[in-house]
Every structure is written in C-alpha cells, then in structure tokens.
C-alpha cells in the first residue's frame, strides 16, 4: 500500500534516485555537512588514551582474547573523557 516508489537506496545509486526527492536530498545534505566537518581534536585524544591504556594491558597480560567482562577500558583512561554523564 505504501510503497509507491522503490526505495532501493544504497551508497552508490542513492544520489541518483534521491535527486528527485527533496527530503532525501535535503537530509543527505544536512548530514553531509556534519560528516565534512574536521574531526574535533578531543576525539583523537580520547582514542589515543584508550589505545595506550589497552596496549599497555595487552603487553602485560595474555594476548589471548580474554573476555573483559565490564567496561574497564573506559573509566580508567582518565576523568576528562567526557564521561561524567555515565554510570
């Protein structure tokens, strides 16, 4: 009943099929503007923290995939990771 137009929007043909559809086009433009923004430094800084904490752990412990039951990596990376709203 509702599918009057085939909505096979995938990565490649989306630009073509959505060209006639102002809503899709508008949304894509709207969110592309965010995608195109440079990544804020805080993201990379946060990743670096997690990364170094994790690799220190890996070299110290068994390299086998241990089931880390719990978000250990998060809280111990430091207080200024923007996690004040969590847990």
């Amino acid at each position, binding site marked *: 009943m509702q599918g009057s137009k085939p909505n096979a929007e995938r990565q490649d043909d989306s630009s073509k099929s959505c060209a006639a559809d102002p809503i899709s086009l508008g*949304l894509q*433009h709207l*969110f592309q503007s965010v*995608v195109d923004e440079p990544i804020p430094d805080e993201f990379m800084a946060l990743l670096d923290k997690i990364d170094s904490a994790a690799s220190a752990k890996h070299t110290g412990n068994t390299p086998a995939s241990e089931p880390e039951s719990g978000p250990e990596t998060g809280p111990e990376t430091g207080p200024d990771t923007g996690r004040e709203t969590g847990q």
Partner: protein
Amino acid sequence: MTAKSDSAAFRADLVAAIPALRSFARGLCGNRDLADDLAQEAMVKAWAAQDSYRQGTNFKAWLYTILRNHFYSLSRRASRFAAWDPDLAARALVTPADQGTALHFADLERGLGMLPTEQREALMLITAQALSYEEAAEVMGCAVGTIKSRVSRARSALTQFLDGPAMPHSRPSPSASEPEPETVS
C-alpha cells in the same frame, strides 16, 4: 601478536567512522555539543565491546546501535537529551546552496524536529546514512516492516509539512511576504 594488530585495525575502522558517528548523533539530538559527547561515549563503549563486533557485518551500523542504545538510556534519565535541539539547520545554511534550497533546509529541519524520535531515526538511517532496511532494523532492534512504515510515515509527515500550509512561525511577517491585498473593504 594478533591482538595488537586487531586493535590497530579496529582503531583505524573507528577513526574512519567518526564523521558518520558524529552525524548520526547530531541527527538524534540535534545539538552539536551533546552529539559530540554522545559520539565520544559511544566510541569508548565500542572499544570496550570490540570483541562483540562480527566481522563482515556493517561496522557503522554496529556503532550506531551502540550510540543509540546509549542515547536512549541517557534520555530516560536526563530530559535534556529528549528534546530536539535545532542546531543542525543553522550549520547547513552556511554551506553553499542556492537560496531556494537553503530556505528549504530550515523548513526540513523544523519538520524533522516535529517527528517522533523513532521516525526521525529510521528516516535518517535509510536516507542520510544509507543503511539498508535490514541494517536499520538491526540497529533499531525492530522488524524490517517497522522500519519501512516509520520511514514512510516520516516521509509523508515531512512532505505534508513542507508542502502544506505554512506553520505560523515559518512565515514570520505576513505583511512583507504577502503582497496580495485583501479584497474586503
């Protein structure tokens, strides 16, 4: 050794997905700062949960799932996340576009804000984030048919909003925009 190289690969995937993650977060809550907090928290959670990612599945969809679960658990506790904050259109308006389209973005964004979150989310995942219906269904934890009907309802609500009679605040000053004189004496 594989643990380390797996981590490096995971990190690279994560970095590559940051822009998409930020844009999805922005679409969920509409506010730049809240969205970036969300995206960073999702990144930390994703890192902690990297063993649960299944190779060969859509990585972005997996990240979106983590982010939206986090978003909904936060918005149950803090109402500031529940409200759509119209920050998005303001930025889109800065991007080069012809005037007609730029005006359209403001309306589109207002229309987005009127949609129920789940409809807005389904519409974003399918159109802006280019997920398949199946992937979107997995992200939102519902049936494919539910996604289709949410997208469909979101589209018709938005179309109606954009085409229909203007809302009072989308035409700020009728005197300027409507030169048509009243025929009543």
